[in-house]
């Protein structure tokens, strides 16, 4: 990277995230002044958006090529008091928590105490949500059966398609006009609401143009004072760009990036959407500008790279907005899940990899920032070279890019009834969630703790951690005479809690639709303009709601252990099993070891366990898939945890797989930590027994010791491993190259790392079984990357 980028990157990495009261204050001011009861929620939100963009500080930093910040400066992180208002205690926690703190200065605390908190108390969406939830919902929520995504962040979860690269906001306004003309004032009782929504969209479209013009003016002002002629010219060029986009379609590579960036800022200033918005198929969208620029000589590869790197830094400048309450204590990431997609297929189904795809991989390799995240889509048609290039970056232990199966994503989308063309232009976002870019609201509504539901089943509806009865009375398991009886009881409990969750979701969905519309996001996602309907209200072409299953490995191993010991081998009575769980295995270590070591486990390509996995999948799938949401769309499942398997673990007592109380659950669709002992092909075979195509995304994490990837041959075999997983319809694989630090951790906690295999020709052994001396040798070699 050149000096400019090195400087900008250094600044972005070095600056500590801090909380800015700017947005909260402006918003409070706005709502204090605009309490006219005849303003529709959509128009009021649009005016609030315009107010923010009119008043907020404009930042153009030294050497910047892409301009605009969500806050007044890089890393200044705003809050969204209309959704959730931080208390003074929350601010203290943010300021002092050891991991991922946000600095909060005294002035901000004062403003919160004197102005922001007094105004918003009792008016936030979060309070509204909790006041509307039923007792049973609250009990299940507190017990850690499920989480709720929308209690402190607005539903977003959508990604942009290619529309902004050939349409300006001027064109969006024309579409709004056309939509207005189609409203049927004679017969449509929704006509007024539609008109209000379109009016709101018009306001926000103009607001973003105005916001860009404010940047143009600022750039001109800086240019006048600038002594360095080169920077002066740059600033004038920036001014010209900001006068042109987003009002008009971009004319070149630079304008395309700046246009997207304004749009991105619009989305994340309007609301704190979950999961953060992103440009999606960036190599596809930018390629025409890249090619044209190289052809007409206005762009070089080097310049394109510099602009992309400047663009990357802008993402890193925007940490995920800080949470409140328990979540504030536990969240441990600044990343906001912007997942840029590369590769895949084009609309006509042909391979989409181009020179820019490779160039962007170079950018990822050089930038090594937490944000944005990146992934490669690998289809049957993707050249091996592209996959290998991605693996060479991963091999360095950076964790990016992650690897996705385009063919699976397309089939998942088709199964959900989406068109082939839309599916081909889609991809994955957030962690792993498949969606149609630019046309779908695919809302993750919350995680669902499957092992906890078993715990409640085993206690006949009671949560043993609190003694409260929160589930159904499905019978005393000591009286069950067959495994099927247990499964039936478990199934009933799953359905019971899914019902509670969906009932709550439906209310929350309407709260956002009625009280917190998002006209700016609606402008961007088809077919909100055409339907004159808000994104939160079913305006998108596709509206999917997800409930994410967590702990699939743990629940499979738990049910397997019960079937194996209680019902098949009869080596243990249910009575004794429950007693061991109640005592958290204290005094039963021998049995706990037997459960860990001498019981079939998911992840070993063993059908005894994997058939139970299939049954659990069916139960969860049948409980959710196909149910209607209130946006005219459908409920689907996916299987991913982000980091919630740790929180859910804390909420779950000892489990029949030998896991002690409060330890983390298994993560994604990965086997229980250390339970897979037959190597990666066996893991993949087991995981592929899940029907990925009936989900909207699964997450598989696989650890690799570095010596497996040391040679080109090793990388090729890894590529084969991935390709085979994808042939078996696997959705995604995340490769983690084991570091020396992990190996040291394995030395300390061998039980959790029994799956780590050290291999050389004709020889392999479990790392944890090696003597300390040999382990130390391997750690040294790992540190020096020499195998």
């Amino acid at each position: 990277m050149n000096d400019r980028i090195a400087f900008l990157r250094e600044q972005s990495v070095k600056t500590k995230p801090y909380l800015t009261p700017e947005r909260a204050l402006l918003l409070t001011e706005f709502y204090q002044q605009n309490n006219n009861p005849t303003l529709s929620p959509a128009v009021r939100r649009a005016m609030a958006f315009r107010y923010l963009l009119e008043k907020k500080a404009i930042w153009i930093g030294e050497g910047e090529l892409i301009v605009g910040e969500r806050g007044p400066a890089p890393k200044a992180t705003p809050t969204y008091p209309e959704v959730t208002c931080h208390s003074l205690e929350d601010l203290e926690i943010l300021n002092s928590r050891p991991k991922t703190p946000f600095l909060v200065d005294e002035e901000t605390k004062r403003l919160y105490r004197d102005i922001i908190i007094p105004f918003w108390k009792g008016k936030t969406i979060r309070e509204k949500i909790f006041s509307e939830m039923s007792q049973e919902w609250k009990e299940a929520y507190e017990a850690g059966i499920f989480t709720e995504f929308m209690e402190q962040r607005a539903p977003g979860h959508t990604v942009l398609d290619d529309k902004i690269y050939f349409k300006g906001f001027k064109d969006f306004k024309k579409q709004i006009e056309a939509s207005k003309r189609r409203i049927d004032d004679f017969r449509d009782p929704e006509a007024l609401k539609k008109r209000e929504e379109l009016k709101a969209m018009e306001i926000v479209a103009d607001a973003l143009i105005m916001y860009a013009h404010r940047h143009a003016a600022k750039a001109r002002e800086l240019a006048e004072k600038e002594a360095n002629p080169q920077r002066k010219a740059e600033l004038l060029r920036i001014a010209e760009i900001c006068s042109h986009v987003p009002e008009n379609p971009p004319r070149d590579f630079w304008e395309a990036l700046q246009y997207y960036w304004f749009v991105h800022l619009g989305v994340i200033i309007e609301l704190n959407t979950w999961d953060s918005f992103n440009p999606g198929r960036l190599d596809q969208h930018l390629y025409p500008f890249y090619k044209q620029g190289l052809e007409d000589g206005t762009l070089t590869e080097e310049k394109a790279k510099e602009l992309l790197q400047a663009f990357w830094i802008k993402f890193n400048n925007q940490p995920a907005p800080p949470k409140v309450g328990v979540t504030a204590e536990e969240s441990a990431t600044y990343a906001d899940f912007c997942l840029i997609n590369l590769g895949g297929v084009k609309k006509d189904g042909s391979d989409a990899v181009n020179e820019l795809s490779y160039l962007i991989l170079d950018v990822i390799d050089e930038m090594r920032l937490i944000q944005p995240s990146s992934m490669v889509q690998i289809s049957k048609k993707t050249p091996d070279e592209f996959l290998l290039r991605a693996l060479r970056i991963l091999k360095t232990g950076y964790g990016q890019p992650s690897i996705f199966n385009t063919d699976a994503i397309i089939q998942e989308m088709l199964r959900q009834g989406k068109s082939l063309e839309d599916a081909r232009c889609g991809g994955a976002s957030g962690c792993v969630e498949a969606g149609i870019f630019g046309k779908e609201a695919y809302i993750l509504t919350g995680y669902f703790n499957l092992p906890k539901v078993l715990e409640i089943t085993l206690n006949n509806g009671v949560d043993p951690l609190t003694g409260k009865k929160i589930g159904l009375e499905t019978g005393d398991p000591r009286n069950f005479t067959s495994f099927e009886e247990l499964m039936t009881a478990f199934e009933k409990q799953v359905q019971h809690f899914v019902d509670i969750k969906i009932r709550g979701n439906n209310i929350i969905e309407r709260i956002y639709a009625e009280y917190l519309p998002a006209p700016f996001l609606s402008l961007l996602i088809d077919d909100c303009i055409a339907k004159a309907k808000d994104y939160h209200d079913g305006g998108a072409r596709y509206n999917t709601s997800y409930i994410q299953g967590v702990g699939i490995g743990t629940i499979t191993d738990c049910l397997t252990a019960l079937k194996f010991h209680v019902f098949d081998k009869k080596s243990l009575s249910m009575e004794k099993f429950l007693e061991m769980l109640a005592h958290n295995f204290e005094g039963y270590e021998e049995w706990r070891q037997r459960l860990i070591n001498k019981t079939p486990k998911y992840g070993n390509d063993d059908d005894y366990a994997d058939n139970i996995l299939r049954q659990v999948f069916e139960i969860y799938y049948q409980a959710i898939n196909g149910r209607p949401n209130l946006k005219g769309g459908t409920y689907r499942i996916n299987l991913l945890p982000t980091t919630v398997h740790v929180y859910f673990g804390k909420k779950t007592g000892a489990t029949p797989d030998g896991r002690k109380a409060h330890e983390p659950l298994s993560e994604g669709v990965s086997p229980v930590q250390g339970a897979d002992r037959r190597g990666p092909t066996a893991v993949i075979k087991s995981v592929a027994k899940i029907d990925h195509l009936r989900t909207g995304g699964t997450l598989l994490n696989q650890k690799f010791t570095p010596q497996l990837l040391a040679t080109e041959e090793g990388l090729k075999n890894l590529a084969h491993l991935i390709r085979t997983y994808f042939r078996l319809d696997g959705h995604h694989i995340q490769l983690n190259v084991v570091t020396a630090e992990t190996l040291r951790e394995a030395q300390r906690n061998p039980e959790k790392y029994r799956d780590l295999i050290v291999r050389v020709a004709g020889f392999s052994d479990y790392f944890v079984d090696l003597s300390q001396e040999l382990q130390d040798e391997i750690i040294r070699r790992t540190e020096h990357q020499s195998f």
Partner: protein
Amino acid sequence: MTKGYVFDIKRYALHDGPGIRTTVFLKGCPLRCLWCHNPEGQNPGQEIMLRPGRCLEGCSRCLEVCPLTAISKIGSWPKIDSSKCDCCGLCTQVCPSEALEIIGREMTPEEVMVEVMKDFAFYQQSGGGVTFSGGEPLQQPKFLEKLLRLAKKNHLHTVVDTSGYAQFDLFVRLLPFVDLFLYDLKLIDPERHLKYTGKRNELILENLQKLVKLTDKIIIRIPIIPSVNDDKENLNLMIKFISSLGQVGGVELLPYHTLGKDKYGRLGRNYQLLDIKKPSSEEMNRIAAYFKENNLSVLIGG
């Protein structure tokens, strides 16, 4: 029915032939190479292996159950008197933590093939297949032949990893079902060979000379053991011998490693090459370059 002793089946084997493979380790070997990293593969019959690191504190289930009182306790760890043990397996059944393991499982070729075929999709994708190793797989010739025939029936690419110490007619019999031989050479001088492996090597060298006349699908694998076989004299003899053979598929040099050391302890045996270190990558490169100078195509494996 033909049955054989298998001591391990390893999936995702990447170093025993092309692509992603499953390596089946057959028990029993005529050689006793001092550096052997799979000592549990040497004896033809079953034996017991103990990983004391896995033992639970205060547990003596194995002692209680052993009918031959072959297990005693030294400090807090069990110790097995292998002269008394008949590998009945009772102790491994009661052991909760898998500290005890019977090495060597009697299997039919069909049972082995069920395991091998589990990764068929990976072989198809990567051009991999199955490798039969050991021990010395040719020590169980009927079993091996059955396995190879079955593998071929299932359209698998097959590799036999051999020390070359077997009757030559066995090679001839197996040849139609083998796509690649990994043929180990350690030392050329028969006396030194005897010293480090327990056997002279005339048979090994002769077999290789004959085999090359029948097929060129042979990769010669040379473990590089510092101070045992990395001297100029041996390397020169190696190069001379290999050059005289005619067409082979290449030479692979395998750097010695000490990772197998722990296994000796687990089997109640002593490791005799304690003072030898793994050769450095510079050293390996230097040896590889020497082979190349002499017009041999050589790779460093491992």
